[in-house]
């Protein structure tokens, strides 16, 4: 099924609505607003926030730590949410707890000198805080202990994105406490995930949320900084939303009830075994509803983007199929995909439990399309990626501040597997006149700039924004590390081991150590790769040290780089000349039969020590493959009596961490004329084409 559909051209809202009504939906429009009614609305919503037990598999509910019952009223004019919540929290540590720590994420946008705003200078991705728009904040006005009905003292931390509540009386290990918290949240103009743009409201990180307490009683209540995302415990949510009646609403979990009173409506949502709750509301949303394997998928779209609905749904379907087969069943019964409007770029591409925001597909000018430009990443990759977070953060709820690579990197890696499952091995992402740029090419291009710089395993706050290494290390390099390991040891073994990690830590807070330990345990410390160049019967094969590979890949900035330092077919040693025979010197004529010696000098130019496969093509067209452990910087290999035509280091491109590939291939001098279609001749033909087009197009 083709991925690229023709989106509507940019046009005034009413025109788009009319087109959507008439051409796309076929279901007519709402008579009052003229807005399209939507698609698939006859599909009933599920009855349970979780999928049936036989589908979702067993769930250990003992991980539930913090339950929330929230009431929230949206003032759509001031973009303010008045709320109250009852938090039920269980002490799962080994000691008594006399204070609870909370995240007040929205306070990151309260002033220019919060940690977040100071680091980001008020901007995020392509959007920025505007002087004409309100500051965002969350103001906690009261905290009360339910059992004693007493008000508790609370105070913000040094940064207002955290808060501490003194409990008065400690909660013993295994004990439960209930708190009532009253708050008011002012949404900012949406420039960093959450906020409003006109009537569109993306309400995320909007309520006081208890931080994570670990087993030994340490709070993980990080200050909200520029690169950090979120971390929370699992629990159940019951959320009552009071919004204007003309707004379409989407939220984490399942809609339980809807009651309209005059110009307001009240909706109750329930979500189970989630660690966050987000919601969205807009007058302009049109719903596209579908069902995949019993999961109801709601897409909330602006009418002008409605033509993209099928492409996103297909991406969602493929992502779900791939990830369920690899990482276990998706446990919830709903998925809500939010398509923010054009003026809300800051809200695009963000994940929340059972709900995520995506991005629109690229509209190509006809001229570009005529040149044969095709792509299959815009919009749909965001859908695949943000859905992937339902696993890598939604189910495997790692600490996104301490180890951001565990959600972004593992998710990006899993996205690459989705694309392989969807489009086949080595999928292309961009095509230009039939020439493909593959997914690993794309990652290599990104890594090129930063090879050998920065470490993957560091906290979000350790990444310097100006240095610009957060994205490349956390997302792409992590993906390249895992893909390289997978290529080296074999997809089946790796997928089994990685799958074990995802199954063992469902609804937990796995760490990087958990991942490394699982991989080493399941794969074995040393994995045999193949024979070395000097292999004799019974000799040891080259092995990969999995733990050492992960140490270098995740904890050092070492770059993978190989080259061919020398390639020579040396003339054989001649017997011509004088040799002593008894007392006499006897002259030997040159018979010209001295066999040549093919000589190759391999070089590891990067600091990353990893075995590499080498392929040698001899002049008689025979090939030989062997592995070099690369523990030394260079390795000289000789083939007496054989002449080498070409050498390829890592011929299959298994080392996706290696960004410079040119010096991996070399022809012997005598065989260079066999290098047909090399980059130099490609460049020459392209230059000729350009010249002929210029001369012929401008000429006569």
């Amino acid at each position, binding site marked *: 099924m083709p991925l690229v559909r023709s989106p509507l051209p940019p046009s005034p809202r009413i025109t788009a609505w009319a087109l959507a009504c008439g051409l796309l939906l076929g279901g007519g429009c709402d008579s009052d607003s003229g807005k399209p009614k939507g698609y698939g609305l006859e599909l009933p919503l599920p009855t349970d926030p979780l999928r049936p037990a036989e589908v979702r598999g067993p769930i250990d509910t003992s991980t539930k730590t913090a339950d929330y019952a929230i009431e929230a009223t949206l003032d759509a004019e001031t973009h303010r949410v008045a709320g109250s919540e009852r938090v039920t929290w269980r002490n799962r540590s080994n000691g008594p707890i006399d204070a609870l720590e909370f995240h007040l994420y929205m306070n990151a946008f309260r002033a220019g000198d919060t940690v977040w705003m100071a680091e980001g200078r008020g901007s995020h991705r392509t959007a920025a805080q505007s002087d004409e728009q309100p500051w965002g904040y969350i103001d906690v006005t009261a905290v009360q202990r339910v059992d004693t009905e007493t008000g508790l003292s609370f105070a913000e931390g040094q940064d207002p994105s955290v808060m501490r509540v003194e409990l008065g009386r400690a909660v013993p290990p295994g004990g439960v406490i209930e708190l009532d918290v009253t708050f008011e949240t002012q949404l900012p103009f949406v420039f960093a995930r959450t906020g409003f743009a006109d009537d569109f409201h993306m309400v995320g990180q909007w309520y006081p949320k208890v931080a994570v307490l670990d087993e030994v009683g340490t709070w993980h209540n990080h200050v909200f900084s520029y690169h950090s995302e979120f971390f929370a415990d699992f629990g159940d949510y019951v959320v009552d939303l009071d919004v204007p009646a003309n707004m379409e609403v989407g939220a984490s979990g399942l809609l339980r009830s809807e009651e309209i009173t005059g110009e307001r409506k009240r909706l109750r949502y329930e979500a189970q075994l989630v660690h966050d709750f987000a919601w969205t509301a807009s007058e302009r949303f049109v719903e596209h509803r579908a069902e995949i394997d019993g999961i109801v998928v709601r897409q909330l779209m602006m009418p002008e983007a409605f033509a993209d609905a099928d492409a996103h749904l297909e991406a969602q379907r493929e992502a779900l199929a791939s990830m369920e087969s690899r990482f276990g069943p998706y446990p919830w019964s709903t998925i809500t995909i939010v398509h923010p409007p054009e003026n809300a770029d800051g809200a695009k591409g963000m994940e929340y439990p059972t709900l995520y925001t995506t991005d629109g597909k690229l509209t190509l000018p006809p001229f570009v399309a005529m040149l044969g430009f095709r792509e299959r990443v815009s919009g749909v990759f965001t859908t695949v990626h943000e859905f992937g977070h339902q696993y890598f953060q939604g189910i495997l709820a790692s600490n996104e501040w301490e180890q951001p690579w565990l959600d972004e990197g593992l998710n990006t890696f899993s996205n690459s597997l989705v694309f392989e499952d969807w489009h086949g091995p080595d999928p292309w992402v961009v095509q230009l006149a039939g020439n493909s740029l*593959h997914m690993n090419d794309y990652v290599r291009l990104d890594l090129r700039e930063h090879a050998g710089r920065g470490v993957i395993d560091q906290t979000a706050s350790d990444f310097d924004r100006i240095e610009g290494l957060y994205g490349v290390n956390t997302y792409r390099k992590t993906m390249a590390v895992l893909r390289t390991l997978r290529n080296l040891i074999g997809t089946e073994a790796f997928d089994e081991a990685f799958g074990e990690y995802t199954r063992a830590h469902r609804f937990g807070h796995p760490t990087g150590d958990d991942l490394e330990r699982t991989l080493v345990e399941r794969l074995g410390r040393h994995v045999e790769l193949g024979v070395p160049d000097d292999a004799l019967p019974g000799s040891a094969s080259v092995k990969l040290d999995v733990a050492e590979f992960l140490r270098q890949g995740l904890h050092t900035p070492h770059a993978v780089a190989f080259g061919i330092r020398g390639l020579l077919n040396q003339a054989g040693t001649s017997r011509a000349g004088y040799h002593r025979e008894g007392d006499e010197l006897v002259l030997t004529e040159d018979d010209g039969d001295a066999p040549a010696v093919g000589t190759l000098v391999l070089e590891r130019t990067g600091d990353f020590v990893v075995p590499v496969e080498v392929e040698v093509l001899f002049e008689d067209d025979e090939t030989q493959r062997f592995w070099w452990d690369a523990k030394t910087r260079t390795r000289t290999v000789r083939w007496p009596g054989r002449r080498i035509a070409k050498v390829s280091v890592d011929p299959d491109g298994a080392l996706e961490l290696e960004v410079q590939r*040119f010096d991996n291939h070399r022809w012997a001098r005598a065989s260079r004329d066999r290098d047909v*279609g090399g980059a130099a001749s490609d460049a020459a033909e392209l230059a000729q084409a350009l010249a002929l087009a210029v001369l012929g197009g401008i000429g006569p």
Partner: protein
Amino acid sequence: MNALRGLIRRPGLIVGIWLTHVALAAGFGTIVERSADAALGASGTAGDGHALYALIELLALQPSLGAGALGGSLGLLLASGLLWLVLSPVVLASLAGRSATESLTLGVRALGANLVQTGWHWLLRAVGLALVMFVIGPLPGMLRLPVVLVALGGSAVALDMVRTQVTLHDASRLHIRSAAFAFVRTFKDPRLLALGAGLATLQALLALTTIWVGIWGIGPSSVVWIERALSLGMVLTGLWRMSVNANLGAVSLQQLAPADPGDGAED
């Protein structure tokens, strides 16, 4: 079919221009290949279907190579424009059936007038196109495209016309009215406009196709002869468009009425 006949009678002209293009392009390609070879040293390519990445890597390793290729192309563009400024009157005279000596003489004599009228033409073309873009600006892209193609194609015909009139006929050599009249005459004659714009559009499409083939051909198989065949198509199309005007005869303000079938516009 006067125009096409006029063109077919001049195979030497066609082949000569085409071979010049081929030679210039081949020279340019050789320079690029030598530079790339020097940059790569003995390294080869993987031959694993990642040729586009290999090319991008080459340009990333040697950005001067890309800059040189782009600069060279722009240089060729400029050189081509200047060359045709000089050659056009000669070629137009030849397509009108004049002998080689006569064509050369006419071309040299009309060189100054051609320079002036080309200048006036580009001034009028810039103003006209700006006006057209202003008027069609609110239209969707797919509707704007044909209008722009007709405007550009018609302009090319108008340039041929003013050059023909000052070279072969007695149009005012220096006054702007000659260039303006050529525009009016071209855009008042639907058949001339359709043929000229059609040929100009075809020429542009062939140029785009040549670039497309160049990109498509990245990899093991050579496509240079396909590119050269397309180049021949561009030369033929361009000369045919010029031949239409060369065989139109003298045109005057009185001919602003629908074209007389006998005036050559039936091409």
